[in-house]
């Protein structure tokens, strides 16, 4: 089947099999390798994308469901100021994510800060539960998010 959708702001058309998984389409057909296959069961967060504005595991999205949708991957987020806020927060907390978890962490934090600019500890914990990390301590990740929130607030105050 042929699907039309918006990928990182660009209209996109592809021939697919209905049951192909979005994570495979992104990586193998479109060369966007930021979403990574981890558990393939919706648990680890390494394949996260924004799907119609909500976080979603691309390993649980078949190609037919992509039809008519709006998909933003980590590569799309990287073009934005929001991404820089988060990246600087991670650098300041010395919590630079590896390639395995970067998509999950950055997109989840982006979604969190968009809906609650000053997130509670509980909301931060919930966000981190959906972006598994095998190495960085929880404390450092929480700090990175707090710094990212500060960066975002400062930037918005400056009207940028």
């Amino acid at each position, binding site marked *: *089947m042929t699907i039309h959708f918006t990928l990182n702001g660009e209209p996109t058309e592809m021939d697919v*099999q*209905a*049951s192909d*998984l979005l994570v495979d389409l992104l990586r193998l057909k479109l060369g966007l390798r930021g979403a990574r296959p981890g558990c*393939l*069961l*919706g*648990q680890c*967060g390494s394949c*996260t994308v924004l*799907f119609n504005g*909500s*976080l*979603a*595991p691309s*390993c*649980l*999205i*078949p190609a*037919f*469901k992509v*039809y*008519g949708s709006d998909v933003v991957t980590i590569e799309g987020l990287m073009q934005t100021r929001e991404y820089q806020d988060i990246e600087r927060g991670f650098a300041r907390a010395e919590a630079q994510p590896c390639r395995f978890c970067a998509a*999950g962490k950055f997109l*989840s934090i982006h*979604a969190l800060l968009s*809906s609650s600019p000053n997130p509670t500890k509980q909301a931060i914990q*919930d*966000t981190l*539960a*959906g*972006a598994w990390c095998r190495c960085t301590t929880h404390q450092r990740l929480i700090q990175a998010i707090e710094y990212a929130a500060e960066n975002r607030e400062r930037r918005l105050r400056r009207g940028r």
Partner: protein
Amino acid sequence: MEDRNPTVYFPDTLSELLQLYRRTPSALLYAGGTYILSHRPGRFLELPSTVLSIQDVQDLRRVSRSERTIELGAGMTIARTLQLGEQNIPRALYVALSSIGPPAVRGIATIGGNLAIPARLMTAVPVLILLEARIELRRQGGVRWLPVSRFHLSDGRLDLKPGEVITRVRVPLQPWSGQMFRRFGTELSPESEPLTVCGLVRVSNGIVEEIRLNGTASGRTLLRSRTMEAELVGRRIPLSRKEVESAEEAFGELPAQLTDIQRDRFRRLLTWFLLNIQQLTTRSA
């Protein structure tokens, strides 16, 4: 017959969906797909020859609120339902929905899908039962309303006729003074010894007017005692130790299939709820 390239329909309207489903009752009704996909047997998804995707059906995503009820379209995602805010849906339901999966799963998983998993009482189900929610079931040429408590049949099947779809969930908005929802483990992984406990209480002038409490163990066994609930109506709060012990006794034996951990946790939470009604009525947990 499994197929990697099935015919997929994207109806825009409910009547189109019901018409298609009537014509092909063996089609797979595909909502968020989080259950369907996470239960695929291998790396790839095998689909039946016809799939009905409900994602574009606007009628299934409507919310309407009156003074007494809120109606949620069955195709609403868990994330969108939570965006309605704690003030618009009963707090126990809000807490239960917030505990479902990681945030990314909540972004695509739907309320209807949560209700319609056969042989499993998933996270939202016991709370909706306790709130006495009802579901609207539609097929071409027919509509009926069913209490959520009667949707899961004792043999594990669902009370769904061929070609029938859950279209909305009507949740009563009663003025509960205190609400509680607690959850351990995950209904789909028995090794996590899953358990939920939900409690609702309405108190007036220090007297219990109505109290409801239920739980699920391993997403299969529903725990509830109407005898205990009846015994507590009319009592003054805080309940004394003796009254709590008597209520626990009235709850009766827990079913044999519960593990020791589930049993212990359920008993503790039951006691905690009864002893803390007063605190709960000032701060719903």
